């Protein structure tokens, strides 16, 4: 078995045995079910919560797009935070001297440990997100109405690439910080703040965050953001690989 495969197997064991995989699947599944339900009952929820004799809020009936949009908003907050934590903790071994020695004295290139583990984390997050989206699509089709496959494909492509990118950012932050909790905190803040970039008209055409806001209009409009997200991902992974290789043992761990 190659070193990369052995590392991937360790990551699979980590995800399955630590409960992280179940957590990812459950989180995305939950928002997959709750997003369309929230869209469907939004008029009643708003009516109950805000209506008074003086103020009456009437919400338009839910459209199929609303079901998927509400799912994606939740998935890209709750699910994203968890996915980033999975990516960050895939490198937690380097934050502890004992386990860092275990890996660093056994491989010539640390990328044979780090990249396969990140890849497994990516796959787990994409599978969990896809499951959540599938549930959201089924729920929306059953309860609200039929959605176009173009829209679903656009949301799936945009969101999974965004997930991959933010996980790569978390990976880079961890490689630089080598402290799990601060890395999760910084990466989460970055992941949640990044979507604000698409509010600037000058940037919105190509910023990766447009993947979230513009994905409902179909995959054909996402060329530039996908390209920039892939470039950011590659830079983050490359930077993390260089940083990990350059670092020696943490003496304060």
């Amino acid at each position, binding site marked *: 078995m190659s070193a990369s495969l052995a590392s991937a197997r360790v990551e699979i064991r980590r995800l399955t045995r630590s409960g992280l995989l179940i957590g990812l699947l459950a989180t995305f599944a939950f928002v997959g079910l709750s997003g369309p339900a929230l869209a469907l009952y939004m008029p009643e929820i708003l009516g109950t919560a805000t209506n008074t004799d003086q103020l009456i809020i009437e919400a338009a009936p839910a459209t199929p797009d609303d079901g998927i949009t509400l799912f994606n908003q939740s998935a890209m907050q709750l699910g994203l935070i968890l996915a980033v934590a999975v990516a960050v903790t895939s490198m937690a071994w380097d934050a502890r001297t*004992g386990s860092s020695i275990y890996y660093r*004295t056994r*491989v010539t290139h640390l990328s044979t440990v780090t990249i396969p583990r990140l890849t497994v984390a990516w796959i787990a997050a994409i599978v969990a997100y896809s499951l959540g989206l599938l549930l959201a699509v089924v729920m929306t089709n059953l309860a609200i109405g039929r959605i176009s496959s173009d829209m679903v494909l656009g949301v799936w492509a945009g969101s999974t690439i965004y997930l991959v990118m933010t996980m790569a950012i978390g990976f880079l932050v961890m490689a630089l910080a080598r402290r799990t909790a601060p890395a999760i905190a910084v990466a989460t803040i970055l992941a949640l703040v990044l979507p604000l970039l698409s509010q600037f008209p000058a940037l919105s055409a190509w910023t990766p965050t447009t993947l979230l806001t513009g994905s409902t209009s179909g995959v054909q409009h996402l060329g530039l953001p996908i390209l920039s997200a892939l470039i950011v991902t590659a830079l983050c992974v490359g930077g993390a690989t260089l940083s990990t290789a350059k670092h020696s043992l943490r003496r304060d761990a």
Partner: protein
Amino acid sequence: MTPLRATATRDQNPSGDAFQVERVTRTFPGGAGIHDIAFTAKDRAVTAVIGPNGAGKTVLFSIIAGLLPADSGQVTFGPGRSRVAYCPDVPQFEPWLTALEVVETSLAIAQMRGTFTASEALELCGLGKVGGRRVADFSRGMLQRLGIAAAIVLDPDVLILDEPNSALDPIGRADIRALITEQKQHRCIVLSSHMLSEVEQLADDVVVISDGRVITNGTTTEILTDGLEPVWTIRLGTPTATTIETLTAELPHTQLEFVTDTLCTARFTSFDTAAIELTHALTLLRAPVIEVTLQDRDLDASFARIIQRQEH
């Protein structure tokens, strides 16, 4: 990075030095670190590096293992002897793996084929029955054994053990001592320990470091006798029948002092004089001799002596 993947085998160079540390210096902000460290470690022997806490032992091991670069100097390995395995004082593993998986992963990521299988390495370190248990449930002593198993499974040329006994009970210490004694027939072992009685039993050579510098090094016997005075403690079964005046007259080069009726010290002018006069003194005492020991002849005392001499 540690060249664990070197393919040469020990058979190409069956004797000689395993590696040489040549004037290695590594300093950290604040002045800590090691300075001008130099010594040679023999193949198929145990070299102990001893020193007070913070002396720089772990930094030195990290440099030998390729985990830290040296600011200057180098570590030169003998031909075909560059595979280094390092077991830290607190080995840590991913807690969701079983012990067997830790050792199997050790082999797989290093792309090595050792002389043992993972199960055999665990068996050798006394963990054969708990191979299927998750590491999260392991005590510190078990983790130390697992660290050694994960290291020896790689069949390294140089095995570095940082305080291998620190978390073990007396039975565990005896097991690891036996394991080290067996393993030194196959490879160079470098270890550190604060349990100097263990070091005394295990080490062929000793390097004493303090404040990041080598104070002295040599064979264990040389270190044990370094600065030692020719003073013996003699314990008698009954009080001596010989008067102190007779003893003084008969043994002009010996200074005898009675601590109690049955315990005295005999100080000689030199070890050569002692070789001649000690037996004579024992005969003159005319009492059953229970024990004759060279005073301060243990590594603890030698270490204290060497460090004190250094401080002065």
